[in-house]
Structure formats: structure tokens, C-alpha cells
């Protein structure tokens, strides 16, 4: 009897500690957001939000902390990345789900996973070696002489980085469709293109959009690689060949000199908060869709 009691007791203890750790992790996550809010609070209370988010005047030495140039730059590189990456990744995912057999799919998992896991500094290095000179040549062809450090280079590099990510997410969405739907269309004599257009895309469009949105969120927050090719000039870019200064690069480049300028540290924490909120909103919406579909 006492053995049974002891086993029960042990089980109770373990159950409590497991639940405790899970709740602890959740509290920790809430705490992280709280710390960001706390650190950027001086900024938010001293300046109206319009001066912070919608102003492009960034002169920390004069007490001007407008973040809009950085937000626009981040949006710019992320949108360029999406324009390049999403058609290619979606088409490749369609090939793997509609045409390839299981063997090919499994064989390609390794290179795709590895590509997704390549450290961002390595992407940045490849960007400096390959993309920068190419974009420089391209700009000369377009009649503008630039070094190549530009929003376009950042976008192209990000496109490469998020391709495997969008590919594997959308492949999961496509593979979760029941085979009967496709078979019905094929039995009616539809070609592969017609099946994809009228059946596969119609039924999976929400999930595919979610996959693309997650790619966008990933691109928006990417730091080191973008920083190496984007030029880091704090002005709103007017063309794709202009340099820009995305939010993550702002944080990464300036964190060292926190103490010398009043309020500067709080401005950088506000930048981190803005970054976290924008990425958070997009990925929350997309993840909610994917969870609803039952991918997970």
C-alpha cells in the first residue's frame, strides 16, 4: 500500500513541477514584453506618438527620435523580399506537392532545411560578395552610379533567406489537403494546371497567404545579414537603389553608445518594442490561421 502511495505522491510532485515550469515559461514571456514596455515608457510619456512613429526626424543629439525612416526601410526590404521570394517558393512547393513523389520530397528536405538553417552572417557575406557588385552594375545600367549598398540588395538577400521558409510552410499547407479533392478534378479530365487553379489553390489560399505573411514577418526582423548590405543611412529611401536603415540594424548598430545621449537608450528600446509588435501582429494572425487549418 505504501508503495502505491509513494508512486502517487511522486506522480503528483512531477505533475505540479511540469505545470509549474510551463506556467513559468509563459510568465517569463509576458515579463519580456513588460521589460520592453518599461524601458521605452520614458520615451512614450515624453513625446507624442506622432512624433515618434510618424516623424522621420532622427537627431538623437537634438532630442528628435522619429522612427518612421527606419520603419519604412524595414517595410521596404521586407516587401521587396516578398515580391521576389513568394512566387518562386510557392511554385516550388506546388511542384513538390503536386508533381513530385514522396521519395523526391524526402530527398529535398535536407537541402531545404540546411538552407533555412544557414547563419544569417553567412548570407550577409554572400550578399557582400555576390549581390552588392551585381546591384551596383544593375544601377549603372539604369543610369545611376551606386555602390550597391541599397534597399534592393537587402530585399534580394532577404528573399533568398525566406525562400526555404515559405517553401516548407506552404508545402505543409498543400500536403494537408485531402487527395480526394484532386482526384475528383483529375477524374473529370482537368489538367494539372486546372486542378491546381480550381481545386488546390481555392482550398489552400488562406494557408498559403499565412505562409507568405510569416515569411514577411521573418524578413522584417532579420538583422545581421540585412545590416551588411543595406547601407545604413537614416533617411527615407526614394528608389530601390537608395541605401536605407531598417529597425533591427538601428538597434544592433547603436546599442553600444547607450549612455552618452539622454533618452537614447529608451528610444532604442522603443524601436525594439515597435519591431516586436509589428512582427508579433503579423505572425500572430498567420499562426492563428495555420493553427486553425490544423497544420499543427
Amino acid at each position, binding site marked *: 500500500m505504501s508503495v502505491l502511495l509513494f508512486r*502517487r505522491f511522486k506522480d503528483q510532485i*512531477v505533475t505540479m513541477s511540469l505545470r509549474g515550469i510551463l506556467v513559468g515559461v*509563459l510568465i517569463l514571456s509576458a515579463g519580456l514584453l513588460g521589460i520592453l514596455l518599461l524601458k521605452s515608457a520614458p520615451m512614450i510619456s515624453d513625446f507624442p506618438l506622432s512624433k515618434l512613429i510618424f516623424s522621420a526626424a532622427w537627431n538623437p543629439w537634438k532630442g528628435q527620435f522619429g522612427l518612421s525612416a527606419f520603419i519604412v526601410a524595414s517595410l521596404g526590404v521586407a516587401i521587396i523580399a516578398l515580391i521576389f521570394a513568394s512566387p518562386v517558393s510557392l511554385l516550388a512547393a506546388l511542384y513538390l506537392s503536386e508533381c513530385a513523389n514522396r521519395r523526391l520530397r524526402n530527398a529535398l528536405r535536407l537541402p531545404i532545411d540546411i538552407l533555412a538553417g544557414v547563419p544569417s552572417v553567412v548570407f550577409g557575406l554572400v550578399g557582400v560578395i555576390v549581390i552588392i557588385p551585381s546591384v551596383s552594375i544593375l544601377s549603372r545600367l539604369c543610369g545611376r552610379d551606386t555602390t550597391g549598398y541599397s534597399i534592393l540588395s537587402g530585399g534580394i538577400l532577404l528573399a533568398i533567406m525566406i525562400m526555404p521558409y515559405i517553401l516548407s510552410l506552404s508545402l505543409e499547407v498543400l500536403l494537408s489537403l485531402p487527395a480526394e479533392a484532386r482526384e475528383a478534378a483529375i477524374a473529370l479530365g482537368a489538367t494539372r494546371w486546372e486542378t491546381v487553379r480550381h481545386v488546390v489553390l481555392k482550398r489552400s489560399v488562406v494557408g498559403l497567404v499565412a505562409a507568405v505573411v510569416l515569411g514577411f514577418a521573418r524578413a522584417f526582423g532579420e538583422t545581421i545579414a540585412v545590416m551588411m548590405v543595406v547601407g545604413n543611412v537614416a533617411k527615407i529611401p526614394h528608389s530601390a537603389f537608395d541605401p536605407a536603415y531598417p529597425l533591427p540594424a538601428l538597434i*544592433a548598430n547603436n546599442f553600444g553608445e547607450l549612455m552618452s545621449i539622454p533618452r537614447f537608450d529608451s528610444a532604442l528600446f522603443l524601436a525594439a518594442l515597435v519591431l516586436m509588435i509589428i*512582427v508579433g501582429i503579423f505572425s500572430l494572425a498567420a499562426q492563428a490561421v495555420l493553427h486553425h487549418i490544423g497544420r499543427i
Partner: protein
Amino acid sequence: MRNRKMKDALFYWTMLGSLAFILAVFSVILIVVFSKGFPALRWSLIFQLPKSGYYLGQDGGVANAILGTLYLSSGAVLVSIILALPAAIALQKDYTSPRFAQFTRLILDVLWGTPSIVYGAIGFAIMVYLGIRASLLGGIFALSLVMLPLMIRSMDEVIRIVPEELRETPLALGSTRFEMVRAVLLKQAFPGILTAVLLALGRGIGDAASVLFTAGFTDNLPGSLMDPVASLPLAVFFQIGSPLKEVQQRAYASAMILLFLILVINIVSRILEKRFTRHTIR
């Protein structure tokens, strides 16, 4: 009819072309890094600490950064395992209501996608509050924040797919939940858990943004948890920024070492997964 077939063929070749393009990009990255890195690779680069004037082209290597990265990421992996495994088990329906579990999974997936520079900034804020300088401890802390959500979620996924019958059998025989978890869930999910750990390790080795201001950078090896520590991604980053050709060459070689580590981890995890999956019941 001919028109429809042509459309189909066009579609087919665009799809195939896209896939080929992605694989070509993958090969170009490998080729560029290895062809630029290999000629600059020396034994001294791997095994020596940077000597004085290293960043001006003098002798030495990046052993400080290689070992530093291994310290940082293995430390963070240890911390994360201790928290992630219990949290992943607690997410199972044996321990939590499905609603709460779904909500937690959603939150963790969002945290997984949070940029690591944000974790770096938060880690730095906490360190300032506690009075800790940029150090191995701070780096491990920030890196654990990055790893934790991805480790919990990937462990959760592999534990969740253990078949219902296998869970119910020991319970029906009178075992407690904990005994069932230990004897069935952990055994069955072991290959997947291993993969999750290696995935997190790979992410930790390659992550630069979170350790940028939390771990610092130094030419020496850390003597204690409170000393600053170098890391390989940052070593690549700082060297590529140099105007000197010799130093840039070393950036290429360091990047090659970094990429090589990631390749090895990926391939090893694939092999281990295959080997251990043989011993699980399907």
C-alpha cells in the same frame, strides 16, 4: 485542347524551374563560401587565439570565437533542455486542457518568430538591471530566450504524435502518468527530441544578433561565466568589415568554418534520427 495542354506544360516547367532555382541558389551559397573560404583556411586559424595586431593582418586565429560559440550555444542548449522538456510534456493532453494547450502553442509559435535582436535587447536590459556586464552568462541567457520557444514547440510536436494506444496501455495496467511518460512518451519521442535539441544548437551557433551586446567580444577565452566571450558569427561580421584584404580573407574562412559546423549538425541529426527511429514502435 492543344491550348490547355500547352498551358499545363508551361505551368509544369515554371514550377520545376522555381524548384531548380532554389536549389541553384543553395549550391551557389555553398560554392561561394567554400571557394572563397578554403584558400584562406590555415590550421593556425582554427587552433590559435588572435595575436596582437590580428585585425591588422598579423598572425593568429579565431579559436577564441570557435570555442566561444560552442560554450555559448551548448550552455544555452543545456538551460533550454531543462526548461523545454518539462514544458513540452506539460503541453500534452495528459496534463493540460486542450484549450490552454492550443493557446500556449500559439503564443510559443509567435515567440519563435520574434527577431533575436529583440531578445538581445531584452537580455541586455535585464543584465543592466542585475549589474552583469557583457559576459558568457549574459550571452547564454539571451540565447536561451531565443532557443526556448523553438525547442518547446519542436519537442511538443514529436511527443504529440505518439499513438494514443501506446499511451493508454500502461495507464490501463495501473501505471501513474509519470511512469507512462517516462516509459512510453520519452522513449518513443527520443529521436525527435534529439532532433529538436540539434535544431536549437544549430540556431544557437549561427545566431549573432542575440549575443551582439549580451556576450561581448574578446580575444581571449573566458575564464569564468562572468567574462566576456567571442562568437564565430560576430568574428565573421567584424572581420568582413575590415578594409584589409588579409582580414577579409579570414572572414571568408571563418564563415566556411561556421557553415561547416551547421552542415555537420544537420547531417548528424538526420543520421541519428534514422538510427534511433528503428527502435520505436510505429
